[in-house]
């Protein structure tokens, strides 16, 4: 099995390096083809491993030593258990699709080869992240995906900065830096968590760490849990570190599909799932996670309600779905979280790719107010996005229904009715905003006509490329029981109490009801076309939402600007005016001392004689005085 591990891991890297060779050249289709193929290879290997894990059990390989100093010894070790296998499969599957898709999407881009190099590099980092058998290995992937996302968000680095009202995410490069730095903030927390683990347990291997958890001081566990979760918050863009995700939409759409929907942003969830022994030992932290997740779910959903930017809407929905996952994980239903993670990966990627098609058709126009009635031009895309949105809304029998519904049941089962209520309501919002988007884009009057767009369906093979995701978005949920059976070999099972079982039907009905009502409302509101009312758009709530609660501006004024100001102050006021001035001051003081003391040297002999005699007298007097003392 070892070889499959290595194949799964290194195939993307090879692809990336291959593409990198051509990075300076004009577009060469070969790069796209090779990388896609290699990713497919990796996917196959992952499936084989998945199968092997389910039949035989976990695979563990240690490639080589990495860091060894003092008592710290960190290998490049990989551990393929159920969770990893699932993650690997999901990641490689989605990436393969996205790669194939990108062959079409990036067709006209002169950075074609570079793009594939980055994209495969990202997959490699993601694989390291999920496959590693120790926390520092995870950190490698953690940082690696960070860099790749930096590269890919800033892929169109040549665009100039513009003001916020022209483009809320100022420029690709700006968004890229924001993402990187914000993640770094979280990574520091993660790093501290790792240090804590090392100095308290003496090892960073998952096995040792989780084995040690029961015997550890609870307070310490809490601290570790918190710091690790801070790391997770960064990557999964949880409040308050969420602003970067929306801005990250500056990247090419396949990137948004792969990185900012399906894989990277779920790394945080993965970490919590991975560390379930730790988090199940500290319910208070877990509960906080659940609450935060719930909050983010509704918080993000609310922003999605009013947004006009096709991709940002999906980004917010991603955020909100991540909230769901954290809620589930926080409530101890780890497999549910993982299940929703996988399901979400499929339909959300599909959604994004669909959005990509639309952008292509509309020459990168993203404002849904300028679209409408596209279903004539792009029937398949309409279908795909409709499906995905239905799945997202959690309509039976699509994947979303099973996963999200279970999460709500869990919330109910835990007697955390507040959480349940919010999540339930958010389900409604989700349904509404996703169909608001769908209807505004595809139905109603063709507002793009006057703007002179000529939409057209994307090439067939791109649509074929998307089909696996579509399929999975539909059927994935049907395999819930198999999934549970498989995953609970590793993750703790989660049994609904009698009381819940009793209510389960009602719950399902209620949830589906609000979802449907959301869709219906969206239908009445938007399917006939766009009816804007200035009154609403001027209203305070609307403006708050459309400005993302003014949080980006807040951050800019609370962090960025003061930081810059302080830096300049430090440099000009302190470094130059105080520290350096002191040094030079000493020098000049000595020099001035010289200037004043050279006045002794009048050149006039009689002054010299005076000084000499005076000196002599002083000596004698001083000495006599001294002599008197003893």
């Amino acid at each position, binding site marked *: 099995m070892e070889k499959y591990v290595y194949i799964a891991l290194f195939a993307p890297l090879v692809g990336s390096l291959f593409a990198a060779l051509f*990075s*300076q050249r004009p577009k060469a289709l070969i790069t796209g083809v090779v990388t896609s193929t290699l990713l497919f290879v990796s996917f196959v290997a992952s499936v084989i491993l998945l199968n092997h894990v389910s039949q035989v059990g976990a695979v563990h390989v240690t490639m*080589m*030593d*990495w*860091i*060894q*100093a*003092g*008592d*710290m010894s960190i290998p490049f070790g990989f551990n393929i258990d159920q969770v990893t296998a699932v993650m690997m499969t999901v990641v490689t599957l989605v990436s393969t699709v996205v790669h194939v898709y990108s062959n079409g999407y990036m067709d006209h881009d002169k950075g074609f080869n570079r793009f594939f190099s980055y994209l495969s590099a990202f997959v490699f980092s993601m694989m390291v992240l999920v496959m590693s058998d120790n926390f*520092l290995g995870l*950190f*490698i992937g953690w*940082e*690696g995906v960070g*860099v790749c996302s930096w590269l890919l968000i*800033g892929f169109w*680095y*040549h*665009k*100039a*900065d513009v003001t916020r009202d022209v483009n809320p995410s100022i*420029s690709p*490069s*700006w968004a890229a*830096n924001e993402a*990187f*730095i914000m993640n*770094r*903030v979280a*990574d*520091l927390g993660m*790093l*501290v968590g*790792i*240090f*804590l683990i*090392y*100095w308290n347990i003496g090892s960073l291997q998952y096995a040792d760490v989780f084995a040690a958890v029961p015997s550890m001081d609870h307070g310490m566990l809490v601290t570790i849990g918190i710091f690790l979760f801070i790391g997770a918050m960064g990557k999964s863009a949880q409040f308050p570190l969420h602003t970067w995700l929306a801005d990250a939409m500056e990247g090419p759409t396949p990137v948004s599909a792969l990185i900012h929907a399906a894989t990277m942003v779920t790394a945080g969830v993965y970490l919590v799932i991975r560390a379930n022994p730790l988090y199940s030992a500290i319910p208070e932290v877990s509960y906080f996670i659940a609450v935060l997740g719930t909050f983010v779910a509704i918080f993000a959903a609310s922003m999605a309600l009013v947004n006009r930017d096709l991709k940002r809407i999906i980004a917010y929905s991603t955020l909100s779905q991540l909230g769901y996952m954290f809620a589930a994980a926080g409530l101890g239903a780890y497999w549910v979280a993982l299940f929703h993670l996988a399901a979400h990966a499929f339909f959300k990627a599909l959604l994004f790719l669909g959005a990509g098609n639309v952008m292509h058709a509309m020459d990168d126009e993203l404002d849904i107010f300028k679209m409408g009635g596209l279903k004539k031009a792009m029937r398949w895309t309409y279908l795909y996005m409709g499906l995905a949105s239905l799945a997202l809304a959690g309509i039976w029998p699509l994947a979303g229904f099973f996963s999200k519904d279970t999460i709500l049941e869990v919330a109910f089962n835990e007697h955390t009715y507040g959480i349940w209520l919010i999540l339930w309501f958010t389900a409604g919002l989700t349904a509404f905003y996703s169909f608001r988007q769908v209807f505004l884009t595809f139905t109603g009057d063709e507002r793009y006509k006057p703007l002179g767009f000529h939409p057209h369906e994307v090439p067939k093979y791109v649509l074929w490329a998307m089909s696996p995701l579509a399929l999975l978005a539909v059927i994935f949920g049907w395999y819930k029981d198999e999934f549970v059976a498989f995953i609970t070999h590793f993750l703790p099972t989660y049994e609904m109490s009698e009381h819940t079982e009793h209510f389960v039907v009602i719950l399902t009905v209620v949830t589906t009801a609000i979802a449907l009502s959301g869709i219906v409302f969206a239908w009445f509101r938007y399917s006939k076309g766009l009816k804007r009312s200035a009154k609403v758009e001027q209203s305070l709530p609307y403006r708050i939402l459309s400005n993302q609660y003014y949080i980006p501006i807040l951050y800019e004024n609370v962090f960025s600007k003061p*930081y*810059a100001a*302080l*830096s*300049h102050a*430090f*440099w*000009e006021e*302190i*470094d130059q005016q105080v*520290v*350096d001035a*002191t*040094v030079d001051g000493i*020098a000049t003081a000595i020099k001035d001392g010289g200037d004043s003391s050279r006045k002794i040297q009048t050149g006039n002999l009689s002054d010299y004689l005076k000084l000499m005699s005076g000196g002599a007298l002083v000596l004698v007097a001083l000495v006599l005085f001294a002599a008197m003392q003893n």
Partner: protein
Amino acid sequence: MNDILSVLIFFPLIAGILGLVVSEKSIRTYGISVAAVEFILSLWMWFVYDPANAGMQFVKRIAVIPDFGISYYVGVDGISLFIVIMATLMTLIGIIALSVKKDLKNMILTLLFLEVAMVGVFVSLDAVIFYLFWEFSLVPMLYIIGAWGGEKRLYAAVKFFLYTFAGSLIMLVGMLYVAYVYQSVTGSWSFALTDWYSLVLPISVQKWLFWAFFLGFAIKVPMFPFHTWLPYAHGQAPTVGSVILAAVLLKMGTYGFVRFSLPMFPDASVMYITPVAILALIMIVYTAMVAYAQKDMKQVIAYSSVSHMGVIILGIFAMNAEGISGSVFFMLSHGIVSGALFLLVGVIYDRRHTKLMSEFGGLASVMPNYALIFGVMLMASVGLPLTMGFVGEYLSLAGFFKISPVMTAIGGTSIIFGAVYMLSLYKRSFFGPVTHEANKVLKDLDAKELTALIPLVAIVIWLGVYPKPVLQPIDNSVKALVSFMHEKAQTPEAKNTIVVSKRTKEAQ
């Protein structure tokens, strides 16, 4: 075999003197070949070095002034070995990448003499000889900055010289006092470090000696608030000057801490962890912010050096194998990375004769290779895993975490602030549209520059992925050092603070 070190020291000296007769037009080849030979010699030294042996190797001791216990006494262990190799490497790279036209001959010969001093400092085991090389290294640097520097070069050069000179004189007094104590204890004079190590100094003496040495080293590092000479030196120095300065000369200070302060004054070192650490934290945070405020690319990197040296100091004062090994490794990585970054700035400076970021923008479009290599070095500098920069930074912080989690958390902000100033530099000069006309026609890296830079990139990746060959010898020697300190420490708090790694315990 034992003379390898003497060869390493005196080969460039002789080559430099003979170089006087080489004609101006073939001097570059001469310089490159000499530096290459020197580098290969140092590699050979690594090859024959026995990594299992933690002690001094290739030891050579010849009495010079026996009456006063001064002897030509050299040797390397894991700690100094790689710094020496880095010194020879960076000299070679520096000469290859040399782009000065004026007085090329003087420049190259000066570099060779500088190499003598650099190698000498790191291999000498006799305090006076150490001091000799330490001081002598100022002279060629003074000349390099002063003769090939920018418009404020004289000020910068003299400031650099005097500042360091003043500090090291105080250190000299300290050294003489240690020698005196040694003499009054054993009855014979000696400046040999190995003899000094055996000396158990009373705490009260350790206290002031620690600060005497501290002053000498801190100015060299340079630690806040003694750092202000550095921006001038870097800002004014020619590219090769900055490369050598950042890569090697700054390491003298941190190396001094490891070689002198820790083993000689273990108690005082432990006692003063907090004040030193506070200075280090100021270096990390404060200078990182100052770096962000810079307008000049080179200044950014100069200040970033100070910030990184702060992390190194933290690692050294972690008092455990993790931290110290990490900091020694970080010395190497910082040497390579900052050296490379200065080279890169030099590249653009040669083309446009300005280093102001406002002059650039969109360079990634016109000079892709340049942008790529710069990006790699940038990522290494912000400590991205699988690059050389991460290993050292991670270990240093991890080590100091044992001393004080809170301080480490503050120090850890360097991974944030580092990203802030480095990324903003990259954004300002490489991203965005090409605004400035002159930048539209810039040509990408030429063969000369690539030959200088690609090896560095290779090293950065290689040692990031597989640091073991370097880290292990370092770690062995450091473990020995730590357990030695532990035994020597007198105060209980020192005993507790200095953590001997379990592996060492098992070994004993």
